[in-house]
């Protein structure tokens, strides 16, 4: 095994082009587990920890360009206003020790269906900035997850950043697990109100082979809110609308039975989280909050 330590992004891309089998490592919270348990013996580790620009973020128009190696702790402390859903999701990852090391870029690279960032990114609207010596391309996050722990990156590509739309309305993230810390999601749900476009985006985690948006539920809700004029009136969402939204969200799941929970439980939990996150965000919207990041998870 080689240990590659590029100090610039160009060096990192050159190394990945030369040795596509090199596994990028930033926080190490996924990669080192696989190495410690002898589940993975890559020909090389590509340490991204010395590339300064990966650990910064900046506003770029209506988006935040979040460097791939910004740890969760900083997403929580620095981006709660711009990216409230992602900040909430980051807060549910592991423990302080894990959040100090783990990164959104790593979550995307691992592409686990249970990754906590994914529902928040899908709900907010995001693009993954993938780079190689051949150039840079932006992949809509919906197209990034291609299977269980598989993503759309080419063998010579690295994740430079993720571009997330800045919140224009309240966002929520909810996750079911056996305790508040140190749990992989049994299932998770992210929801974002976009009052600027009069749309709601919502996504599930850990309830299908990949994280995914609940398209039919979103479409139903968008028309129901529009027909009743609720974006303008800021009136209460009728219980029948919330219930139907929850049913459609559950119907979007294709969960499995495993040690963490049964498929039936996951489907039920997703419907509960869908209804709750909708009502929490709508209450914030009614109260005039531009964004919301304070309510604890379900």
């Amino acid at each position, binding site marked *: 095994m080689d*240990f590659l330590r590029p100090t610039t992004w160009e060096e990192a891309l050159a190394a990945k082009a030369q040795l596509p089998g090199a596994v990028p490592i930033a926080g*190490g919270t996924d990669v080192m*587990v696989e190495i410690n348990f002898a589940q993975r013996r890559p020909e090389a*580790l590509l340490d991204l920890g010395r590339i300064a620009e990966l650990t910064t973020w900046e506003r770029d128009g209506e988006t935040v360009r979040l460097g791939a190696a910004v740890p969760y702790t900083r997403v929580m402390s620095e981006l709660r206003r711009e990216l409230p859903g992602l900040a909430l999701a980051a807060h549910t990852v592991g423990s*302080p020790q894990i959040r100090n090391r783990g990164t959104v870029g790593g979550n995307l690279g691992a592409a686990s269906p249970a990754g906590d960032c994914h529902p928040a990114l899908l709900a907010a609207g995001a693009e993954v900035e993938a780079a190689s010596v051949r150039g840079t391309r932006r992949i809509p996050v919906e197209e990034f997850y291609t299977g269980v722990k598989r993503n759309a990156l080419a063998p010579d590509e690295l994740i430079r950043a993720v571009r997330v739309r800045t919140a224009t309305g309240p966002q929520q993230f909810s996750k079911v697990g056996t305790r508040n810390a140190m749990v992989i999601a049994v299932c998770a749900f992210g929801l974002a109100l976009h009052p600027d476009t009069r749309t709601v985006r919502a996504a599930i985690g850990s309830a299908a082979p990949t994280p995914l948006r609940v398209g039919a539920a979103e479409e139903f809700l968008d028309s129901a809110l529009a027909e009743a004029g609720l974006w303008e009136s800021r009136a209460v969402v009728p219980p029948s609308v919330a219930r139907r939204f929850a049913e459609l969200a559950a119907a979007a799941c294709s969960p499995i039975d495993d040690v963490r929970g049964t498929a039936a439980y996951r489907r039920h939990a997703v419907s509960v989280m869908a209804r709750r996150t909708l009502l929490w965000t709508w209450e914030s919207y009614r109260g005039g909050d531009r964004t919301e990041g304070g309510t604890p998870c379900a």
Partner: protein
Amino acid sequence: MRVNLTVNGRPQQADDVWEGESLLYVLRERLGLPGSKNACEQGECGSCTVRLDDVPVCACLVAAGQAEGRQVVTVEGLADLAHERAGSPAEEAAGGHRAEPAPLSPVQQAFIDAGAVQCGFCTPGLLVAADELIERVPRPGDADIREALSGNLCRCTGYEKILDAVRLAAARTAEPAAAAGAGE
């Protein structure tokens, strides 16, 4: 490969390090610092918590090569760290070497006094995490303490005495500062 790093203020060098090796393995097996404990090797238990450039991390999830040129503090260095924070430069002036080891840090003493140690396996990780909390949040509330220690598992104590110990350490650490502030 060779890895150079600073551990508890002292420059260290480890040779023949395997590229997939963890910082924890280097500390325990190559540098003779077995205080950080090796249990789950997947970041679940917090027994290997150390500070890497001041930040609490699981040493089992840091590749050794990632620690090149970095500063590491382990449980073995907590007493010296507390000593430095309290501003006792006398020994450093005399060559940086103390005739006697520094007394226990406030957090270590509080764990003893509160009865927060049973089998002791989780204790080093808890001490490093608790020490960092009190440095960052001098008067932590219970929610702060619970969150800061949420990545450290203890299967003996039921945590209550550990929470007592952290409250005690925070109070003792704040006391001299409060007294000095009142005197000015």
